[in-house]
């Protein structure tokens, strides 16, 4: 009985004082006091279970625009921090047009300049055809020779110079960006975010008192309780601890597990559609998929044959519409990356 109560105490947030009272009561032979403390422990355990059950609701809670863009910015920085950096060389002309950024241009880079603007021109054209043209889309080039692309909620799309170097033409580059746009418009990462929120909430509620992390854990449990009772969540008003906890959890999930095969197939479908409606030849996307490493570069993806096969029905669906589509050569700023 005592062991059961001790275990119950370990998972209860505020049960340790009750455990102490129970231990003291038992030591002094005060059976009635021990029973009373045990009942208190049981009540605490039930309260904790009730709170944790509420945490589960986060899994299916639809995030507001503010919450999506809030976690999106934090995760974008989090993911970018795991890379070798952002490709920020821009031309003096472009820098002068956006003095608010406070960026000093690096002249003498020749064709390397304006690559970010080029990628944004393609990406924003595709995004204009998407279900969410009103998102504040930002396409970011990462300075990494490893071919990769990923996205964060709210309209952030990242592509490495290595991926740009691996595409043969603008249609293939658009295909990569379109796939990531598909993850954002489908709010795919928000599914993982809901689970991250629920898991973090559950852990915060259960965090024990007396550990070195107790103070933070208790603070987060209180903040999660406030979020549970809030009609809408705006992470811009949340504590830095909470934002870091959630963005770390979501970024870890996206890097280690990816979005899952169903969402990857869905994003391929969106990419195909966006290519067609933006005037790009979608066959180039298929060619690109076929030559990618099977299973993805860094994050898990379905096999290439399956991805190409899933796109096959779309050819028939778009046969009448997809006329006069092109695969333009890459702009010199992108070709320079290939060297």
């Amino acid at each position, binding site marked *: 009985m005592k062991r059961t109560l001790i275990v119950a105490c370990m998972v209860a947030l505020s049960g340790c004082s009750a455990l102490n009272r129970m231990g003291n009561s038992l030591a002094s032979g005060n059976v009635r006091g021990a029973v009373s403390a045990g009942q208190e422990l049981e009540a605490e355990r039930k309260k904790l279970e009730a709170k944790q059950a509420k945490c589960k609701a986060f899994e299916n809670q639809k995030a507001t625009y503010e919450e999506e863009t*809030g976690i999106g910015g934090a995760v974008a920085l989090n993911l970018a921090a795991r890379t070798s950096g952002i490709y920020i060389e821009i031309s003096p002309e472009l820098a002068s047009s956006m003095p608010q950024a406070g960026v000093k241009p690096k002249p003498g880079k020749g064709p390397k300049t304006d690559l970010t603007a080029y990628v944004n021109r393609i990406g924003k054209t595709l995004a204009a055809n998407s279900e969410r043209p009103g998102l504040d889309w930002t396409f970011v080039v990462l300075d990494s020779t490893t071919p990769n692309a990923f996205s964060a909620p709210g309209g952030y799309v990242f592509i490495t110079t290595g991926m740009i170097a691996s595409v043969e033409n603008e249609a293939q580059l658009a295909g990569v960006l379109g796939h990531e746009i598909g993850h954002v418009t489908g709010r795919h990462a928000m599914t993982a975010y809901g689970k991250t929120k629920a898991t973090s909430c559950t852990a915060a509620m259960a965090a024990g008192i007396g550990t070195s992390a107790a103070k933070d854990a208790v603070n987060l449990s209180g903040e999660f309780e406030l979020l549970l009772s809030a009609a809408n969540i705006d992470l811009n008003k949340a504590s830095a601890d909470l934002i870091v906890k959630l963005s770390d959890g979501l970024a870890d999930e996206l890097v280690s597990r990816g979005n899952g095969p169903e969402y990857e197939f869905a994003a391929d479908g969106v990419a195909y559609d966006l290519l*067609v409606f933006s005037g790009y030849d979608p066959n180039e996307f298929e060619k690109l998929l076929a030559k990618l490493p099977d299973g993805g570069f860094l994050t898990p993806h379905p096999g290439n044959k399956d991805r190409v096969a899933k796109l096959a029905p779309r050819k028939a669906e778009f046969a009448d519409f997809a006329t006069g589509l*092109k695969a333009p050569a890459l702009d010199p700023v992108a070709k320079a990356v290939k060297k």
Partner: protein
Amino acid sequence: MTRASSLLVAACLALALPALAVKPGGKLYIKTKDTKVLDKADAKGKVVGTLQPGDEVVWQGADAKEKQFHAVEMGKVKGFTLQSNLSPSKPQTELLARDNGAPIDGKAFASSGAATKALNEAALKAAGKKQTKAELVKGLATAEGVAASVTVESKGGAK
């Protein structure tokens, strides 16, 4: 396979490949502001109507010769418009919860004092807590600045 698992498989397949056949008589959406509908597949054609983003049109197919012009109908407006003015899906409107679901325009929101883009408060708080390198924050803010300076050309992507 049980009925439940069959339904689950069907649901997964539907998720993976949502049906979007574009056949004559099918629905498409206007994506470009003040889209002109012309009486013939020619840029010099007479304007028979002006449509707006989100307008649903019936697609009748590409012109046999001028393939970039596609025949569309919306009520009494019938004619040709550029393929690049058409979109497969009706654009969703982003809604601000704090203003009781008021619709926003992403660009307007980004340029307003509410966003001042260059990263939201949540991102900056997290960056500060994690001691993310200042150049990374600056780099992402710069990319946002570049993105904001890029305007989408109405004639579409591929030239």
